[in-house]
């Protein structure tokens, strides 16, 4: 497909002959979208990113980024992508500004150009005031913003973000989300991100792939995933205590299931916002009044539970990934 900026087919990574970190995954990412990999610690998110950004080679399968093969044309891929790694990789002993310039040099960008861009990027991530301070004095949020600026120095077409808000507090996280949205909206950049925060995937991503034990178990826009679960729940109370309206409600096509408890009805419906008025209308037509109605949307949490059989909290991962995550969290909170 011409429009797909990332295309992976049967991508697989086996470490040391027996650790299957990524297991035959196939997906494609369209230009200009925010695509999210959602999964617990050790699911294989970082390994997938590392293959796509040409840092490690797949054991099996292949992928293209910006139309170039990640193994055979790695150089072309590298020139067109930006990376914001899970770890804080900026050099602590250098200043923020020196770090950005170093990144520019690594891409072979002429100094005059990288200096100009560095100034713009520092402005963008609001670090201009701190640009000459050593990175070791930065807070977690500042470090993350610096990583973002470094990842943008070569004006990438695709930006890869590995757990961009890991360990950050709610406010800082919201600020990072704003930058990510800005990149998509203002610069039409494609963003490939991983996260193990459900709210993050829900709030940011146009499409999400749920990954568990190295396999994609479900993929689609967050709303669709939730809808597929069996839809919204409407809870309803009517005035007249012992009238039976269940069969009345069941006649509405988008209603899937009705359960009655005393004079409260629990109704599973497809499109909550549209169906609720229809239910009220049907009950009114019979001369009864609805006293109370509430609509609950399923969260990605439930989607996750449905497809992986476990809650996001039962996390585990290998030595390397746990070790690196802990350090990232520690630095984020510093």
């Amino acid at each position, binding site marked *: 497909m011409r429009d797909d900026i990332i295309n992976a087919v049967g991508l697989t990574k086996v470490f040391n002959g027996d650790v299957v970190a990524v297991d035959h995954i196939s997906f494609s990412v369209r230009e200009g979208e925010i695509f999210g990999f959602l999964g617990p610690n050790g699911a294989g998110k970082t390994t997938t990113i590392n293959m796509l950004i040409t840092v490690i080679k797949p054991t099996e399968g292949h992928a293209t980024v910006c139309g170039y093969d990640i193994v055979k044309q790695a150089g072309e891929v590298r020139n067109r992508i930006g990376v914001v790694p899970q*770890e804080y990789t900026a050099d602590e*002993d250098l200043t923020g500004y020196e770090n950005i310039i170093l990144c520019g040099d*690594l891409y072979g960008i002429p100094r005059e150009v990288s200096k100009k861009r560095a100034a713009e990027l520092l402005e963008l991530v609001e670090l201009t005031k701190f640009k000459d301070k050593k990175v070791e004095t930065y807070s977690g949020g500042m470090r993350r913003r610096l990583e973002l600026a470094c990842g943008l120095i070569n004006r990438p077409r695709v930006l890869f973000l590995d757990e961009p808000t890991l360990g950050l507090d709610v406010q800082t996280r919201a600020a990072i989300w704003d930058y990510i949205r800005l990149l998509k909206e203002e610069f039409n950049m494609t963003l490939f991100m991983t996260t193990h925060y459900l709210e993050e995937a829900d709030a940011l991503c146009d499409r999400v792939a749920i990954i568990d034990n190295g396999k994609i178990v479900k993929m689609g826009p967050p709303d669709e995933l939730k809808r597929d679960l069996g839809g919204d729940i409407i809870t309803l109370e009517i005035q007249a205590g012992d009238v039976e309206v269940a069969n009345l409600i069941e006649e509405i096509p988008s209603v899937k299931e009705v359960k009655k408890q005393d004079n409260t009805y629990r109704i599973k419906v497809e499109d909550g916002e549209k169906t609720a008025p229809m239910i009220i209308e049907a009950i009114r037509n019979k001369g009864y009044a609805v006293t109370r109605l509430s609509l609950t949307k399923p969260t990605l949490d439930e989607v996750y539970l449905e497809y992986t059989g476990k809650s996001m909290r039962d996390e585990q991962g290998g030595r390397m990934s746990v070790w690196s995550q802990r350090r990232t969290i520690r630095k984020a909170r510093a």
Partner: protein
Amino acid sequence: MEPKEDHQEGEGVMQNQVSTNPLHGLGALTHRELKKWYKEPIVLFISVVQPVIWMALFGKAMNIGGIFQNPAVPRAVAEELMKSTFGTPDYFSFMAVGMLSFVTVFTSMFSGMSIVWDRRLGFLGKVLSTPVARGAILFSKIFSAVIRSLVQSGIVLLVAFLLGLRLGPSFTPLNLLGVFAVLFLMCMGLSSIFLLIAIRSTRWETQMAVVNLLNLPLLFTSNALFPTSIMPEWLRMISKINPITYGTDAGRQLLLYQTNASQLAVDFTFLGIFAAIFSTIGIFLSWKYLSK
């Protein structure tokens, strides 16, 4: 930052820059390594003072010449004894040149450690995702080690002069260039070896253990502190394949002894081959192993 238009223009700029230079990024990475050193006054100070302390302690405290400063031994005999063993009348000069090898070995070891840290801290991963030549990653470590050890050696040599190093009869200022060339080759080969050991490692503890295991044996199986002529046969055999022996000998030929041109040629050839072989293996393996 102006949206869209600016970005498009920027992309045009970017497209022109696909670098085909195989060592692209080498300068930037080497400079990063060196910055950590020269921008940190304490690190710089310690790295210079440490060999000076060793030299003062080893060279002056282990005053082997002093053993012969005994009324029972005539002065001329004592000097002759020292000269036939060490090639120079005082042990301090002998040892001071050996100390240049110490500096080189320890600085080379450091380069191996730093690649392990870069891997663990994720910096290596980030560099690997940029178009930097893989060989440049390894070579930036080698060159920064070389530059550091040359600067440190220069200072050590200067201090040695001040503490009484006696130059040999055939010394000319040009010989100093020769000494630096020797140290260059020795450091290049040694740091390649230490980097090769470290290239796939993720645990700095392992690297540390390897380094600790190797450093003293490497020095004591060479002529850095004692001449090979007074070693037992088995040790002398080992010292014959130890590059430090050749580096130190070349240094002494150039600084202390009546230069023996053919011996010097052997030293240079050995070190040249040593540096070439291991840095080539280094490039080869960094292509293969940096990205697993």
